[in-house]
């Protein structure tokens, strides 16, 4: 190709890439919701899990502490309790106005916050009337107690309430609605034993949407730092949403710096191998085209692209980086690049087709995220392959150094050729694999997704401490009540309450909060209404009860008015309840699904799981304890089963493709046997080293398998030309070294997900390389 035509082609290609990049940047919508990367839930528990993981009350809860800044934890230095309490109040006031938060609690129960119109409802909500009518004896006793209260030092707390609420129903409700194990109140707000003010904030955003959680957390921090006097105090956060943000940032940070180092190494390696800047830059074009075309295909086929798809996809696309390397290594000094590629193409095409077929299996899995992964990698590999074949060779410099002339390479080839290749090697390796797998410690699979993105120990301890101090519900267990209507759920909840009280008394559980605690059934509210005396009767009863007591006779008119109002109130329904300050709390506990209603009881401090499960006995499935951890693990198992099934199909297709392409079972064996053995060898070595296999290990094994297939294919090829054999060795060594460089660096990462991928691919590349050489047919054999 002439100089001018080359320049035109290069510019056209770059323009096409630029255009594609622009379109992609306009259309690409990345979702961070973990759930779209999960298989469709099949059991009711799994479906509930998916909802809870994203939107459950527990996952949207942030635990906050405001303490003295570091270095001033000694009492008397830094802000006082009073200042911390003021900060706590200020923060709650700011967050209550912000639509990003559905709830902000700090322990202060402000009666003023209650709508005056709702106050008469206390007679319908408080359990007093269930056992105690408003008769003369009761009123007289209550009034005498109030008199005693007035002479006590706590009188000022009570004086304002007395005329309206002589039986203190409001305080009974406040007590009922306070978490059973609530922190110590100081200065009117929650405090931890470590002298920090404590707060609970519920975000509107889902807990496992790191993007939205980041915004919510930023909002809290901004609101806090805007408060006067916040400079000397320290705000700390915890909770699932905060963790998802921290883990995301940590993983990104580590992947970024490892990526930077290995990119520099990769560039240096290629420069060393080919001594040509232009070759290096040009060989990046097929990979860039692959990535952009892959994303473009995703934006066409799917409305949203998952972040994990992209991360995995770029990893799997690593295979494509071999195509230009092969072309560069196989060039001869006197030959046009186009001709070199032509000779190489049948083998390259086999490799591309095999990889595409393996990844196609992902599409059959039916999981949305895996389908995306398949589309991305297959389109990417095809684009990388075909642009390497039809575009790249026209751009490469005409004159290059033939790598076959390198002296070290000739020596290396001789060394490789002289290696003994006994036929019992596959048997020995297979036996070793079986032995190692048998001897490996259990369990084989890692089902706990959280174990792959573990949190720093100090964060977990901080979380446990705050959770303990706040009596915040466990994120693991939920008591699920099911009924056709909301009223039915509340009725079930009321029926269950005495059993739950017994469990709490027996210390099977620290607290179990049921929806009826916030809202009794309409039936019960009506029953309580029936108990309220009519105005004339109450007036008479009150007058009699007041006999001999020094209260002013007209003092209790607001009380009489409220009781009169309460008698005529329409009972509170969840809908009307939603307007109250506690509405959000109840809304999180009552969810509608598939034509029925679910009540979610939150559990804190589980000591006896069996006793909790026993609550569901004889309930015909209307009451059950949901273990979110067990449900998530069963989901992971389902997920893995699908991947393994897909892999099995891929393996069969792969055998057929290779056999067809090489038109020889024996040759196919030489390619597939080392690849299969190496894959299982990685698995066996990792298992013996105590690694539990996760989804990430499987994806990494597939990538390593794809690379290994290349090595085996090229080593198996016998051209009868020693120079071409040397070039094959050169290309393979460059490929192996670059893969080891990139993934070997990842293997040093401290974050297990990155380490799992790095370690598996590095081991895989090493094993594939060695076994491909040792099991390749001898040059002299044929």
């Amino acid at each position, binding site marked *: 190709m002439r100089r001018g035509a080359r320049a035109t082609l290069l510019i056209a290609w770059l323009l096409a890439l630029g255009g594609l990049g622009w379109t992609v940047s306009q259309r690409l919508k990345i979702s961070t919701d973990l759930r779209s990367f999960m298989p469709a839930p099949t059991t009711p528990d799994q479906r509930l899990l998916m909802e809870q993981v994203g939107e459950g009350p527990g996952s949207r809860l942030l635990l906050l502490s405001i303490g003295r800044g570091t270095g001033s934890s000694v009492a008397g230095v830094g802000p006082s309790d009073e200042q911390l309490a003021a900060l706590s109040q200020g923060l709650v006031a700011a967050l209550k106005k912000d639509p990003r938060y559905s709830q902000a609690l700090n322990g202060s129960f402000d009666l003023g916050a209650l709508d005056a119109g709702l106050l008469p409802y206390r007679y319908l909500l408080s359990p007093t009337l269930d056992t105690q009518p408003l008769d003369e004896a009761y009123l007289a006793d209550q009034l005498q107690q109030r008199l*005693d209260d*007035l002479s*006590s030092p*706590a*009188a*000022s707390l009570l*004086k304002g309430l007395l005329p309206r609420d002589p039986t203190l129903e409001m305080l009974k409700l406040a007590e009922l609605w306070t978490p059973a194990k609530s922190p110590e109140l*100081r*200065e009117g707000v929650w405090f931890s034993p470590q002298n920090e003010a404590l707060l609970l904030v519920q975000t509107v955003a889902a807990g496992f949407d790191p993007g939205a959680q980041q915004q919510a957390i930023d909002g809290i921090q901004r609101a806090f730092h805007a408060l006067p006097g916040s400079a000397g105090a320290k705000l700390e956060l915890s909770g699932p949403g905060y963790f998802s943000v921290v883990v995301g940032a940590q993983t990104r940070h580590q992947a970024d710096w490892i990526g930077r180092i290995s990119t520099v190494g990769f560039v240096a390696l290629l420069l060393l191998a080919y001594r040509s800047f232009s070759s290096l830059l040009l060989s990046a074009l097929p990979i860039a085209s692959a990535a952009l075309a892959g994303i473009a295909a995703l934006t066409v086929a799917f409305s949203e692209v998952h972040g994990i798809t992209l991360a995995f996809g770029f990893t799997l696309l690593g295979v494509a980086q071999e195509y230009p390397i092969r072309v560069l290594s196989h060039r001869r000094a006197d030959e046009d690049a186009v001709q070199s590629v032509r000779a190489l193409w049948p083998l390259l095409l086999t490799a591309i087709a095999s990889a595409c077929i393996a990844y196609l299996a992902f599409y059959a899995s039916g999981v949305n995220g895996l389908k995306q992964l398949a589309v991305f990698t297959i389109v990417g590999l095809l684009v990388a392959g075909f642009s390497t074949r039809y575009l790249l060779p026209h751009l490469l410099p005409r004159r290059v150094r033939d790598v076959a002339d390198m002296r070290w390479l000739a020596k290396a080839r001789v060394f490789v050729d002289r290696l003994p290749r006994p036929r019992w090697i596959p048997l020995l390796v297979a036996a070793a694999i079986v032995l190692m797998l048998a001897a490996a410690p259990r369990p084989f699979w890692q089902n706990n997704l959280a174990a792959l993105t573990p949190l720093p120990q100090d964060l977990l301890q901080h979380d446990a401490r705050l959770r303990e101090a706040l009596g915040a519900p466990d994120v693991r267990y939920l008591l699920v009540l099911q009924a056709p209507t909301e009223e039915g759920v509340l009725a079930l909840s009321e029926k269950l309450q005495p059993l739950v009280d017994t469990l709490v008394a027996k210390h099977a559980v620290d607290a179990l909060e049921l929806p009826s605690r916030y809202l009794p059934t309409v039936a019960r509210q009506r029953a309580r209404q029936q108990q309220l005396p009519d105005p004339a009767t109450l007036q008479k009863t009150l007058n009699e009860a007041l006999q001999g007591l020094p209260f002013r006779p007209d003092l209790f008119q607001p009380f009489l008015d409220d009781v009169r109002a309460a008698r005529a109130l329409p009972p509170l329904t969840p809908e009307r309840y939603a307007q109250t300050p506690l509405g959000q709390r109840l809304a999180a506990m009552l969810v509608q699904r598939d034509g029925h209603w679910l009540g979610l009881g939150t559990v804190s401090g589980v000591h006896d799981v069996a006793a909790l499960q026993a609550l569901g006995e004889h309930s015909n499935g209307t009451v059950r304890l949901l273990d979110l951890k067990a449900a998530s693990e069963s989901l992971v198992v389902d997920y893995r089963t699908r991947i393994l099934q897909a892999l099995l199909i891929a393996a069969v297709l792969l055998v057929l493709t290779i056999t067809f392409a090489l038109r020889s079972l024996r040759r196919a064996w030489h390619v597939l046997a080392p690849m299969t053995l190496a894959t299982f060898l990685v698995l066996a070595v990792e298992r013996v080293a105590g690694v539990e296999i996760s989804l990430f290990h499987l994806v990494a094994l597939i990538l390593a398998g794809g690379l290994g297939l290349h090595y085996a294919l090229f080593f198996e090829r016998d051209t009868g030309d020693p120079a071409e054999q040397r070039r094959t060795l050169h290309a393979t060594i460059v490929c192996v070294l670059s893969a080891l460089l990139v993934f070997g660096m990842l293997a040093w990462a401290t974050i297990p997900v990155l380490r799992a991928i790095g370690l598996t691919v590095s081991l895989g590349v090493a094993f594939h390389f060695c076994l491909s050489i040792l099991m390749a047919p001898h040059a002299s054999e044929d």
Partner: protein
Amino acid sequence: MIAALGQPAPAHTAFAEARFLQVLERPLVVSGELSWLGGDQLQRRVDHPQQETATIAHGEVTQQRAGKSPHHFSLRRAPQLQVLLDSFVALLSGDAGRLQQAFQIRQSGDAAGAWTLTLVPRDAKVVETVASITIDGYARESRCMHMQEADGDLAIDLLGALAAKMPAQPTREALQALCQSTP
């Protein structure tokens, strides 16, 4: 003068209190013993008409009624007790500095004869509940304490020997006269 009032801890004194509250037609009368246990610890024990003990220690109040489990709350939630602690302990320990710290002080009368101290809490939150305290005394003895609450309610405590002289149906005027009388 305040230094002269000082006594070694523990110091006990009988009291009888009449509370004039707007919600009540007639005053509420209780009697018992106030004890300074040293440091910031104060006990207010009521013997009549109901047994009740309130103990202040380390910023926390523990309230105990006969036959009921004790009730704890922060001293900050009971400004009356905060004021009682600040004034009573300062007077019993003869600590003028402490008194000065918690209150603006006005003094009238004669240190050797009848005197009156008027104390206005400096703490903005406390003064929202307790407007002022007036202590009447004679020579080295505090005899009466008036606690004027911001909402108009008033508590008058007769201290020491005077406590026994609490009338069955006290009025503000009668108690005022008792406090001004010469022992």
